[in-house]
């Protein structure tokens, strides 16, 4: 398959997906949704892919809009809005969002669906749907409030106000902010740190956190214990412990 709206490559067990830096997203949203979904399927099926980076770069303020994000540039909405997050949240491996510039509207919803967010210090964030009479439709009302808490999420969703990277970091919307020229190396370093861990353990840790947050503590503890004991059956576990005891680097096979 040829990809026109995005590009991707895999290097050192990390798949990097570059989303296009264009202003006029509503013209390509259908294609972008299809292609992102396709690439996520590739990531999920390649055993050697241990982590994914989603690279979001948008250095231009989306013009002529109230920042309403994709598909809403003209104020018109599809009857069934196209979800960009559906494919990403199906991935059971860690997904890191790299953000440089404006993550506005659906772009913000997309980065909220990732597991770890690193942004350049010149990035901006907003959920502006309300300014065009809409509400976030790609998981934003749920994921933003779960990530930054009710107080800040309600403020951002009801006012549509834009915040800068520093504020986004302060409220926990992004994990780290770095200088723009450091962004690539910071994200790559984080992805490689993740990719070096036990791959099954990574997937189970992610599952325990994401599923567990939707359960009572008691149920979450059960899930964690079950996944932990399931890991006892893997070769990676004995490899990891032996490697630690012998002070060498573990060689994980995902088995």
């Amino acid at each position, binding site marked *: 398959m040829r990809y026109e709206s995005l590009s991707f490559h895999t290097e050192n067990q990390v798949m990097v997906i570059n989303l296009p830096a264009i202003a006029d997203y509503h013209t390509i949203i259908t294609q972008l949704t299809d292609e992102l979904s396709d690439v996520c399927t590739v990531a999920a099926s390649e055993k050697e892919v241990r982590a994914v980076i989603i690279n979001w770069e948008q250095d231009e303020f989306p013009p002529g809009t109230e920042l309403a994000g994709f598909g809403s540039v003209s104020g018109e909405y599809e009857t069934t809005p196209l979800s960009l997050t559906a494919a990403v949240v199906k991935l059971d491996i860690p997904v890191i969002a790299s953000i440089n510039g404006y993550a506005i509207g659906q772009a913000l919803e997309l980065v909220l669906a990732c597991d770890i967010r690193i942004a350049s210090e010149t990035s901006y964030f907003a959920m502006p749907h309300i300014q065009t009479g809409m509400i976030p439709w790609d998981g934003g009302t749920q994921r933003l409030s779960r990530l930054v808490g009710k107080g800040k999420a309600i403020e951002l969703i009801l006012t549509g106000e834009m915040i800068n990277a520093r504020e986004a970091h302060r409220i926990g919307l992004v994990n780290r902010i770095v200088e723009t020229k450091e962004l690539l190396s910071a994200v790559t370093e984080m992805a490689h740190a993740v990719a070096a861990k036990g791959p099954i353990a990574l997937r189970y840790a992610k599952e325990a*956190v994401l599923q567990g947050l939707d359960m009572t503590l008691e149920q979450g503890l059960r899930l964690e214990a079950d996944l932990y004991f399931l890991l006892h059956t893997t070769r990676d576990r004995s490899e990891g412990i032996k490697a630690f005891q012998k002070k060498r680097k573990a060689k994980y096979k995902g088995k």
Partner: protein
Amino acid sequence: MTDFDTLLYEKQDGIAYVTLNRPEALNAYNIQMRDDLYQILSAIKDDDEVLVAIFKGAGKKAFCAGADLSEFLSAPSPVVARQVRFERDVWRLFLNIPQPLIAALHGYVLGSGIEIALCCDIRIASEDSQFGMPEVDLGIIPAAGGTQTLPRTVGQGKALEMLLANPWISAEEAYHIGLVNRVVPIDELLKAAEEIAKKIASCNPTAVRYAKQAVVRGLDQSLAEGLDLEKRLVSQLRALRAK
């Protein structure tokens, strides 16, 4: 003072002190510590004289540097290990203690060390504390509640970063992300924990327990159920006070 193999236990003026006491092994959590902890926690739970408890680590280097890996590869089959865990579920017990628990953290606070701290309600750290979640480095995941308690304390974003990438976190960053309530110089650590403990111990013990219950159990319920719980606890308290 009561001595266990791996823990020290003291009680004074309504405050219980539990000291992880394997300083030669950086207070690493092992099977013996699990059994000792199970006994002590069961005792605390049933002891109305204990109004609040402080957990701390012996020695200069660590609160607790994680689980003792030397025991890991001799573990029984997963089926047996799981059965044993649920028969003597020390973590479930830890998270169901009715009295407030305070962790006084210093040095290495890694893996099970963070998890023990997260079973406590209030965390004070000395400036030299360093935090890390190294489990996935070893091909495993936390098993003392960490995947559940960490995101409930620091939020999903930071918890996933710590669990998946295992960056080392300084005391200052731990404070910034809400992992610890307060950071103090090392020689004021115990004093700071005791100050909070004394304040709690000076309050009505039933009110203290109910406040903890309302928050901890309430967060596990829908808001409507949580408000009902709060209302029930308040009327019980009123009835007790009227006596």
